[in-house]
């Protein structure tokens, strides 16, 4: 479209191969059954994959700088939302209220593969 676009096509197959390799790692991670490893392989790799797609497929680094600011601003707003809402939502009781179902759930150990559990 414009001259800035001439040089930004990299080797897309290579990026794709990287993405697939990362996918294998993130699926394999939980088999070690160490929670920290699972979290890192699941979410750390998700961030890396998202970065690869955003930079190499969406060309966010070729686009104008304000696009990066725009995307990161919305992400920061979401972090803010999470930070301010989580203290309320994650509580089981607060001033003048309780969440009976949450307390009950915490007390009864769940059964894995237990089928449908309507409550």
């Amino acid at each position, binding site marked *: 479209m414009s001259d800035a676009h001439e040089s930004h096509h990299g080797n897309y197959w290579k990026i794709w191969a990287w993405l697939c390799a990362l996918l294998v790692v993130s699926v394999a991670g939980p088999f070690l059954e160490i929670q920290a490893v699972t979290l890192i392989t699941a979410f750390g790799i998700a961030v890396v994959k998202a970065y690869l797609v955003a930079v190499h497929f969406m060309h966010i680094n070729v686009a104008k700088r304000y696009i990066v600011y725009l995307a990161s601003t919305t992400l920061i*707003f979401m972090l803010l939302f999470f930070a301010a809402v989580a203290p*309320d*939502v994650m509580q089981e009781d607060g001033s003048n209220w309780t969440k009976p*179902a949450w307390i009950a759930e915490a007390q009864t150990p769940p059964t894995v593969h237990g089928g449908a559990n309507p409550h």
Partner: protein
Amino acid sequence: MAEAVPAGSQDPHGGHGHHEQSFWSKYVFSTDHKMIAMQYMFTGMAMGMIGAFMAYAFRMQLAFPGMEVPLYGLVSPANYNSLVTNHGTIMIFWVAMPVLLAGFGNFLIPLMIGCDDMVFPRINRLSYQIFLLSAIVLLASFFVPGGAFGGAWTAYPPLSSEAQYSLTPMGSSFWVVAVALEFVAFLMGGINFVTTAMNSRAPGMKMYDIPIVVWMIVIASILFMASVGPLIAGAIMLFFDQNLGTAFYDPSRGGDPILWQHLFWFFGHPEVYVVLLPALGVTAEIIPVFARKKFFAYKTVLYTVFATGVLSFTVWAHHQFIAGIDPRMANIFTVTTLLISVPIAEMCFVYIATLWGGSITLSTPMLWALAFVAEFLIGGVTGIFLGASGADIYMHDTYFVLAHFHYTFYPIAIVGTFAGFTFWFPKMFGRMMDDRLGKIHFWGSIIPFNCIFIPLFVLGMAGQHRRIFDFNAYPDLALPWMQHTREFVTIALLVMLAFQLVFFYNVWKSLRKGEKASKNPWKSNTLEWTTESPPGHGNWAELPTVYRGPYEYSVPDREEDYWPQNQPS
């Protein structure tokens, strides 16, 4: 609407052989930004009349409980709830947003930045059609079994999510669907506004040559886009709670009702600024023109607005101080809420500084603009009481809150609209408005408005709670002086509504017999005043080039006291 819009007879494209358009393609399915602006504006005004009628019905019930309200009939408790809920919903989402953001945005952005249309005219048309559909869905909710939703415009669960409490199973769903559709319409419109203003400016128009109202509408659209997402997700969750038996907001089954309050107010508070900023922008255009003075501190205002925009995302939980949120959070939100009054106060000072030493003409648009600053100040100052969590514990859900936000929204949605409408009327329709009738309408709206809401502050301080259908059930709130005050308020409302007839008569008369407007009747600088009144299709025969900022009034050593943006020096 059809006869209200004079035909744009001149053909700017000269030899293109512009053929005559049918009624449908010209007024209904037009992609022209000016026509879409008119559609938004008149739909918004029609919805405004419906919202005002609702206010009339429930105010009559409050002043004269159990009375057969003329034109409405008996107001039952369920009706009362539906009326107050939909009054709030309509006035914010179907009046303030379409008129201020979409109406003025569509009309002004292309004209003020010097291009021929929006960048995506067909998406623009689609956004209006979705908006119209949303209005129809909302109004249809009054005719479904169970009646319209009555759980307040904030739609807190469980009242909104469970039919056993709301008793309006279909009405609640219609409400959620209508609001979600409206959001989709404004997302599409907002992306159009932002892209147009960023990309389609006239040659020579630099960032700081853009008129403030365009900046304001663009920033408002961005605020809307960045804040509405969680509520769209929340609306889907609420809809599933209502219809699919999920329990996102039901604490007895693993959900959390406070989540909805956060999702709602994360949008709901920036929404105040979404409608405030266009109104501030409209007044920012009017005041320099009628004070014949350069706008005071253009860049400072822009930085202030950026700061306001960012801060507006950090204050939302002040609506929830007594909902049982974490008290540590309440501290933080009190601080941010008090902080955000600083930039808004600064804007008021900037307007006053612009007036200082100017040669002021008190025309109708100027009166509205000045009234906006004055009345909004009262709304802002009372907001500081409510923003402090300690005071809010006492004031919450009383008529003090109600009077406070009417003192913000009335100046925004009504005063701001009339200011802009009377100011740009010559450009929209090619005729001047009757100034004398305009002033009668102005005083007939502003004086009763204060008579309505100042007494409500007093009643609120006395402990009068919101959302009560008949105060006789509460002896403490049914004292004679309180009942007399309520009657006074309702009579003031009737007077205010009666004076709106003057406005409609004025519009009707001016469209027929008003003096023909010249290109630039107010001797203003911005680009929309350099084309015909009304502008033809394509806006200019030759698109303008910009040489200077928009507020060069009374520049020394010039014969004229204004200096249009497109005039080469």
